[in-house]
């Protein structure tokens, strides 16, 4: 009867949760009941629980006045001896210590409880006390804390140790004095006290490497009881190994390895985990760790299986061979009911498995793809991508799989990962191109992500025209014009124009389609269509190449700045495109770097953007120097600074070369590593016999210790012979030395001249050339035409392979490889490399280099086309 009545009452209250819909004001009102005497523990306990529940829910913010009032009412409860009520009050103090004012009022009451006779109260009282105390208050309770740490009651000792650790965040200098007590507590027979004491001890001494080393060697012998303490000790030991880089030789490593035989699974796993994450371990040294993880794979506990397979997955990234022994166990996990475990098992297998097992694995993955989270799906996609690069012959299976994943539901990140993967595979494997493009076409038919649709349309425009049957893509592209938003329509128009420009037989149809787009409702789409129709109707290859297929090659930031300048200073001269700095990296190319570890869920790096802005930064810095103001636009800055000194000498000097149309500026970044010297009037004197004239030195006024400074040297390029572009400069650092006080940095008044000889600086052809990506090399080749063509044949006897030759040619000429021709297909004995760039002064430079492997090395036929005859000359003479 009693039960029934209660049920009914609860139903009326709503959902049987008495704490549901608590109202802040009511609860705070009720808290006044704490002030009544005698205290009713049951009632007050209920109210206090409500208060705690409300704070815990966090929906209703309690103001500090309200909190303070409730807090003071709560302190009245110290009069009650009821244990539950008292303990709830401690929690209340902790929870409200952040919101209420004057909480230190309860210090003395808590101190009484902390030192009292009732062990039940002492631990929680210490923890509550430490949550309200600060550095100044801490000194007055220090004595009691020290006693508590070594108290024989475990709960008290643990509470004191843990609180000390919290306190050391703010009052390290006080807690430091408790080392001896902590030391004593480590030998406690309670496992938790031991763990907490070890943690505190390490924390207090962690900056003293010797003390930490001693700590580990002492406790690794004297066997600890707590598995947690063991885990901590393993972590300390592996940190030491990493810091000191002692590798597997040290005693620490032996200790970690011995932990693999500990009786607790926690410790075994911690040890295996530590060994696997250590730098520079060999597959052989990992074997014992891998074999314990293998055992864990068949454990009935999901957490243990998860931990094991996750760690094995990590091993497989570095040492796939070490994991092959576990393949059988991993295969059993593919059907695991925990999908995370199954996914990890499969991606591990994909890394370690052989080509023959791929088909079967793919089938198994597809059976549960729908059940796992997007995060794991991305892991799978990346695993497939790397697998496809590893076994190019399997691309058919993988492509089908990826395309079926594209059709399924999924978020943007997931779809993006798939599209990225397909694009990477297409670019890497020409056999997969057609299938890949077909899948992508199908995808954009029903794609809600504008970013992906425009990206795919761009890819179609680039790759589609060069496939055997370009006409089949037109339908997909034109559908976009009819169905999509403005951004996608504009991208589709551009893609379509590219088909028209590249394929003569499609030209007329494309023009018809584009003319229809001239009536589009969006400005951008209309403008693009009109522009393309006009260009296409001219029917000139050169125009097609310059305005449709290859587009602008300038840095967008630079263009913006140049145009801004132009509008500020109106002149009659038309705006000259050649004054705009070129994009250092092709803007169109946004491949994610291949070779990225799968499982590494990071977004594609914005390296392209950085590269272009770096040169912009230089341009800005240089134009700020009055002497360099009228040199014209900066053409190129060398990307990697050249070291002109050994790394550990008195002065460190790095050189960056900036090329202008008729001058070069050498930027010397100098660092003074001597703390008892100040250098003044630092210049780098340069001498050359190759017709270069040094025009001006801009000294670095003062170079104090460890503060980098910059000196510049301006050089005029030889004008009488335009093909003379290379040379060598001997450099000397000249400066006035003044001794100074290493502590204050104050320099003497007197100084003396000194010199320091630096390494030579070379100016090479590459310094005069800016890399430019031509997405359609053939079109550009025809555009430039054979007027200034030069051809020569070289025997490169020092090159042993085609890859070597390709790498070296790119380096010598400083041009951008196009059409992915920098990758030599395996097993071929001949290869053609296409390079493109712009020479100083804005002349296009294109190079076709046919390479053939012979017995005595590599033979090369080099053909150069350029808009300027001298440029062709220079480039041909650069090799040789």
């Amino acid at each position: 009867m009693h039960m029934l009545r209660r049920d009914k009452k609860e139903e009326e209250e709503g959902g049987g949760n008495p704490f549901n819909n608590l109202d802040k004001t009511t609860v705070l009102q009720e808290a006044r009941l704490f002030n009544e005497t005698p205290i009713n523990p049951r009632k007050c306990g209920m109210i206090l629980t409500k208060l705690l529940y409300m704070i815990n829910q966090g929906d209703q913010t309690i103001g500090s006045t309200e909190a303070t009032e409730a807090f003071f009412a709560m302190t009245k409860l110290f009069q009650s001896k009821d244990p539950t009520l008292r303990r709830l009050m401690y929690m209340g103090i902790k929870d409200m210590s952040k919101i209420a004012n004057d909480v230190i009022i309860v210090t003395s009451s808590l101190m009484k409880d902390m030192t009292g006779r009732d062990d039940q109260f002492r631990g929680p009282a210490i923890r509550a006390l430490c949550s309200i105390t600060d550095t100044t208050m801490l000194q007055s309770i220090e004595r009691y804390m020290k006693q508590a740490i070594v108290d024989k009651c475990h709960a008290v000792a643990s509470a004191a140790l843990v609180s000390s650790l919290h306190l050391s965040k703010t009052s390290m200098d006080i807690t430091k004095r408790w080392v001896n007590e902590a030391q004593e507590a480590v030998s406690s027979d309670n496992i938790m006290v031991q763990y907490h004491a070890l943690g505190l001890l390490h924390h207090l001494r962690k900056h003293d490497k010797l003390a930490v080393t001693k700590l580990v060697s002492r406790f690794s012998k004297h066997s600890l009881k707590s598995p947690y303490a063991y885990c901590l000790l393993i972590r300390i030991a592996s940190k030491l190994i990493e810091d000191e880089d002692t590798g597997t030789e040290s005693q620490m490593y032996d200790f970690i390895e011995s932990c693999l035989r500990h009786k607790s699974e926690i410790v075994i796993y911690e040890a295996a985990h530590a060994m696997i994450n250590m730098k520079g371990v060999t597959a052989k040294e990992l074997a014992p760790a891998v074999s314990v993880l293998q055992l864990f794979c068949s454990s009935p506990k999901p957490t243990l299986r998860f931990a094991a397979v996750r760690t094995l997955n990590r091993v497989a990234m570095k040492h796939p061979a070490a994991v092959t022994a576990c393949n059988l166990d991993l295969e059993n996990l593919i059907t695991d009911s925990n999908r995370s475990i199954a996914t990890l098992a499969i991606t591990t297998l994909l890394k370690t498995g052989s080509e023959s097992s791929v088909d079967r694995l793919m089938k198994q993955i597809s059976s549960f793809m729908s059940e796992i989270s997007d995060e794991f799906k991305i892991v799978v996609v990346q695993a497939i991508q790397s697998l496809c690069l590893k076994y190019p012959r399997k691309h058919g299976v993988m492509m089908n799989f990826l395309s079926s994943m594209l059709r399924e539901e999924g978020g943007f990140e997931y779809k993006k990962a798939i599209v990225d993967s397909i694009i990477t595979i297409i670019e890497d494997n020409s056999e997969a191109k057609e299938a890949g493009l077909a899948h992508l076409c199908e995808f954009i038919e029903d794609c809600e992500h504008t970013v992906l649709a425009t990206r795919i349309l761009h890819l179609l425009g680039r790759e589609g025209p060069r496939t055997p049957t370009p006409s089949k893509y037109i339908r997909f592209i034109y559908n976009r014009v009819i169905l999509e938003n403005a951004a996608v329509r504009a991208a589709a128009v551009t893609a379509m124009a590219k088909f028209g420009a590249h394929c003569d037989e499609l030209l007329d149809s494309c023009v018809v389609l584009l003319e229809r787009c001239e009536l589009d409702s969006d400005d951008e789409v209309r403008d693009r269509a009109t522009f393309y129709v006009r260009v296409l109707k001219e029917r000139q290859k050169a125009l097609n190449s310059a305005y449709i297929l290859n587009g602008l090659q300038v840095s967008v930031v630079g263009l913006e700045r140049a145009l801004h300048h132009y509008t500020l200073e109106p002149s009659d001269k038309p705006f000259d495109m050649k004054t705009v700095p070129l994009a250092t990296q092709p803007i169109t190319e946004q491949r994610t770097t291949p070779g990225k570890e799968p499982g590494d869920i990071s977004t594609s790096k914005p390296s392209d953007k950085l590269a272009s802005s770096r040169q912009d930064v230089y341009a800005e810095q240089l134009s700020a120097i009055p002497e360099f103001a009228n040199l014209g636009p900066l053409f190129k800055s060398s990307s990697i600074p050249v070291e002109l000194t050994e790394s550990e000498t008195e002065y460190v000097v790095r050189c960056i070369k900036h090329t202008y149309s008729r001058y070069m500026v050498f930027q010397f970044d100098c660092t003074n590593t001597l703390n008892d010297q100040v250098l003044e009037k630092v210049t780098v004197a340069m001498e050359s016999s190759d017709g270069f004239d040094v025009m001006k030195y801009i000294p670095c006024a003062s170079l104090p210790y460890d503060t980098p400074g910059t000196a510049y040297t301006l050089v005029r390029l030889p004008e009488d012979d335009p093909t003379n572009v290379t040379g060598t400069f001997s450099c000397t650092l000249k400066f006035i030395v003044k001794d100074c006080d290493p502590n204050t940095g104050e320099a003497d008044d007197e100084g003396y001249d000194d010199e320091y000889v630096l390494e030579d600086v070379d100016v090479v052809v590459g310094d005069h050339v800016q890399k430019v990506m031509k997405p359609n090399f053939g079109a550009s080749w025809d555009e430039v035409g054979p007027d200034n063509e030069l051809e020569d044949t070289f025997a490169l006897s020092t090159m042993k392979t085609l890859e070597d030759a390709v790498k070296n040619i790119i380096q010598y000429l400083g041009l951008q490889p196009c059409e992915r021709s920098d990758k030599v297909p395996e097993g071929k004995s001949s290869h053609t490399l296409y390079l493109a760039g712009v020479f100083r002064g804005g002349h296009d430079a294109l190079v076709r280099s046919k390479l053939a492997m012979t017995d005595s090395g590599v033979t090369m036929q080099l053909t150069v086309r350029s808009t300027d005859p001298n440029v062709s000359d220079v480039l041909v003479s650069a090799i040789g």
Partner: protein
Amino acid sequence: MDSHILEPSLYSVKAIMILDNDGNRLMAKYYDDQFPSTKEQKTFEKNLFSKTHRANAEIIMFEGLTCVYRSNVDLFFYVVGSVNENELILASVLNAFYEAVSQILRRNIEKRALLENLDAIFLAMDEICDGGIILDCDTSSIVSKVAVKSDDIPIGEQTVSQQIKSKLEVIQTAKDQIKWSLLK
């Protein structure tokens, strides 16, 4: 990728939670600033719940965190730690918490029972983890510290099922005793 070597520290737990079968918070403690506001915490809880309430799989990597969980009837217990944390340590915390709650509620792990004993559950949570440091993982010691005397509650307030269960247990032990005496 970031370093997988763990900084040796006692701070191993990032959060402990109990949610109900709609993913609402019954109690939750966060020990660091990863989710600074209540709103962010609750969104995290909702998302975590929607990922875990169907499959009883015990562990999941979620939003860059390792989450271990257990559920019973209408209660979901979670312990959250860093992605590099030893999963087994987190699992041991979860188990200690779950078992402690189970003992406090006398094996009757249900939302209603939990709310009836909310004070004791709060105290148990407080005894297991203090500011992210594991304080105690021994169930019996936690329960003894929380100090709820099982005889406190009058029989009328125990549910019928509990009473039947305890009766059954008595019968079982009696049976066992007879069996053993026969075997001897």
